[in-house]
């Protein structure tokens, strides 16, 4: 008789940036079903915004996500500027794009590191996080902060990037390219990583459409959706870049898409910096005095996919309703398809593959025997099983 077990991952677990609880229902090593619980960190941000002025909302939405903290102000600014019919200066468009792409760089590098760790490649983890520091240093230099940059405002940005700094920023960016080459080589050419991630956690095109998944999760299943191309905003239509897709549909394809997007981001930032030098310094804001009555719909492409903001205004200085849809909300739902039928050893990397927002707090994850309630394993054991599988594959190759 096979033993049925429930393996809870979370609510606090190194796999996740935010407290969430996944219950994996397993028979033997195979995941038979998955359930999801959240709300541990419900902060009522949408409700709070109804008591803030339109300008104050930027500081609140910047704190929706600690990693992609510019995506929400980006989508909100797009919504409000459409409602106010405001055009922002070109220089502000380039600065916004640079911030958005730097954020994609650091977020993808963070993910590559974590994915490496879950597979038992701690060198990849240390490299990726070390090279991510280069990006965070650039952030500090441009915005004054390593995270939560407070750069956006209705009508433009708060800080300029002086022309005198552009050459230096470009040279720092140049040092990042060989590091990305190194990481890409380490992941794309390693036979064990291929064996651990190919044909694992498959999401078909139909699954993506049915769950409304977005970002690299959708692009890794061959669906070329990207708000930057589909509904262009900021300086994205003014520079050359391409949407990266893969037909693999598995965990490897998701890694491939993210790694190749790093090159696109570097190229976009490079082009923006070049074009900025021809524009007047300091021309970064067209002040907006009034927000009229009406509805506004804004979106931006965060590192994890489309961020959507809906704002209803009654002509006063606060939103009547502010709805926020983060990409993980739709991406996490795909676990029902990608995890079921896979082994427990692969569950960690499949859950990590959509890059659900992670929490820094590690508390507990225990596996109980379904019948006796006896504790079998904890979260570290789960990662240990994943490492063990990688080591076994290494021994065979």
């Amino acid at each position, binding site marked *: 008789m096979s033993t049925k077990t429930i393996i809870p991952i979370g609510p606090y677990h190194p796999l996740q940036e935010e407290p969430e609880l996944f219950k994996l229902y397993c028979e033997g090593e195979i995941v038979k079903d998955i359930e999801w*619980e959240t709300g541990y960190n419900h902060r009522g941000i949408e*409700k709070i915004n109804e008591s803030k002025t339109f300008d104050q909302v930027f500081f609140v939405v910047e704190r929706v996500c600690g990693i992609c903290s510019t995506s929400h102000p980006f989508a909100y600014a797009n919504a409000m500027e459409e409602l106010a019919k405001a055009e922002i200066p070109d220089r502000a468009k380039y600065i916004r794009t640079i911030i958005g792409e730097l954020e994609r760089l650091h977020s993808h590098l963070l993910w590559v590191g974590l994915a490496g760790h879950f597979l038992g490649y701690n060198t990849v983890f240390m490299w990726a996080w070390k090279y991510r520091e280069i990006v965070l240093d650039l952030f500090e230099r441009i915005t004054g902060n390593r995270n939560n940059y407070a750069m956006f405002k209705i009508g433009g940005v708060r800080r300029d990037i002086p022309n005198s700094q552009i050459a230096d920023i470009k040279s720092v960016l140049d040092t990042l390219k060989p590091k990305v080459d190194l990481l890409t080589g380490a992941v794309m050419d390693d036979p064990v990583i291929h064996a651990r991630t190919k044909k694992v956690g498959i999401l078909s095109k139909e699954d993506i459409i049915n*769950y*409304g998944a977005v970002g690299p999760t959708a692009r890794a299943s061959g669906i070329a*959706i990207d708000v930057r191309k589909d509904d262009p905003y900021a300086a994205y239509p003014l520079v050359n870049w391409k949407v990266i897709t893969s037909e693999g549909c598995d965990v490897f394809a998701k890694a491939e898409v993210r790694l190749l997007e790093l090159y696109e981001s570097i190229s976009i930032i490079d082009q923006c910096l070049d074009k900025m030098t021809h524009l007047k310094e300091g021309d970064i804001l067209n002040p907006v005095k009034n927000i009229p009555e009406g509805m506004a719909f804004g979106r931006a492409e965060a590192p994890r996919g*489309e961020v*959507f903001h809906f704002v209803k205004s009654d002509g006063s200085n606060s939103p009547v309703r502010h709805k926020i849809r983060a990409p993980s*909300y739709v991406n996490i*739902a795909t676990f029902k398809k990608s995890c079921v039928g896979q082994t427990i050893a692969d569950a960690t990397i499949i859950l990590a593959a959509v890059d659900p927002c992670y929490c820094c707090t590690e508390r507990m994850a225990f596996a109980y025997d379904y019948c006796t309630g006896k504790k079998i394993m904890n979260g570290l054991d789960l990662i240990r099983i994943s490492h063990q599988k990688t080591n076994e594959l290494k021994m065979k190759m």
Partner: protein
Amino acid sequence: MTAINYDILPDILKLNFNSDIRRIVIQQRKRLVVYIRKESLLEIANYFLDELAYRFIIATGMVSDKGYEVIYHFSDDKNGYIINLLTELEESKPEIESLANLIDAANWIEREIHELYGIKFINHPNLTKLISDGLWKDNEFPYARKKGDNQNPAGL
């Protein structure tokens, strides 16, 4: 999939769905709000998802002057349009047919709207709490419409 000409989309919608479409408001370029009868939601949503291959973004629940409104946001990724189906629900009977059987993406958000506003989604496969398990009582809906009550119901 049918090619979409946005100049004539309002006319096509009125032709196909006649009195089910109450009015169409062009909020901004590429942003349309279609006010529909709530009884026709499934049929019209199916038209956008199946015929026009739109992507379901999310739904928004909100309190209105007369009761509640639920807005379903759809994206035309090929042309960058956002089409919003707005349904109005009476305060005395806030009910609407669930989209979750049509598309899985609607499952969680309908549960969330239900637990915050008390709006019932008819035929939803699992209309249980999503984000606040254990925080509020079963029949307590923190953002539901409360007449003459100025206190913030969620205690924020």
